[in-house]
């Protein structure tokens, strides 16, 4: 093995470790949110909460650490925060499970409401995070 392939393998291994570490922290944060936030009126508030806040964080961080951003972040840090933490913190699978469970329980109205509110608020949150960071990036000085 040449030294170049060795160093590529090392870089890849480090990025995997960053994603794994961020993923564990994000997932534990999601688990804690589910222990604290109650499900009221059969509506899955804990999942909605993590998916909205996770979208906000990724929108904010991606723009703040992007090409025109004021935060200089290494690839490792970006993978840790975005792929790792935000990816582990948010969940599309629970969203799907909860929607199908509502449908199977005959709660079609709640299911439809859950899907509609989820998609709109996730996207608005990601945009809001982006807009906030873009504003910070435009501020003079550092």
């Amino acid at each position, binding site marked *: 093995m040449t030294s170049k392939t060795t160093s590529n393998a090392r870089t890849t291994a480090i990025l995997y470790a960053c994603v794994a570490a961020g993923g564990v922290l994000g*997932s534990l944060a999601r688990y804690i949110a589910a222990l604290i936030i109650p499900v009221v009126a059969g509506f899955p508030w804990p999942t909605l909460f993590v998916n909205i806040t996770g979208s906000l964080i990724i929108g904010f961080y991606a723009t703040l650490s992007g090409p025109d951003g004021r935060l200089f972040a290494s690839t490792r840090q970006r993978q840790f925060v975005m*792929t790792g933490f935000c990816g582990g913190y948010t969940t599309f699978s*629970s969203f799907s499970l909860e929607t199908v469970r509502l449908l199977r329980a005959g709660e079609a109205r709640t299911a439809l409401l859950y899907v509609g509110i989820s998609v709109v608020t996730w996207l608005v949150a*990601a945009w809001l995070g982006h807009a906030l960071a873009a504003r910070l990036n435009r501020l003079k000085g550092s």
Partner: protein
Amino acid sequence: MIGGFISVALGSVLGAVARYFVSGLVARRVGETFPYGTLLINVTGALAIGIFGGLASDHASLFAEPDPWLFAVTGFLGAYTTVSSFSLQTLSLARDGEGSRAALYVALSVGLSLMAAALGFALVDALK
């Protein structure tokens, strides 16, 4: 209580690593003009969660127990699937003037994931 945290942590290491592997593989094979990787991850994760959900409705099932559920569903599938990347990718498509592709991505993600989760339940029902 501590057992729950350990189950979630172990499952999530595997789930996050699996997502990073699959999204990288799809990006290299298919390219990155459309987020096929995240789409594939969310749809396959939804199918799996439907299967686990179906299994857990039987009280004799392993997945009706708290720790196996926390490992496989809250840990693994929770970390494997992602809403944050989905939101960021949709926003990037929209900001690049690709409004119709953004709308297609949202419709495919939500539609296929819900169908996959329902299919998972149906598979378990059929095999009972």
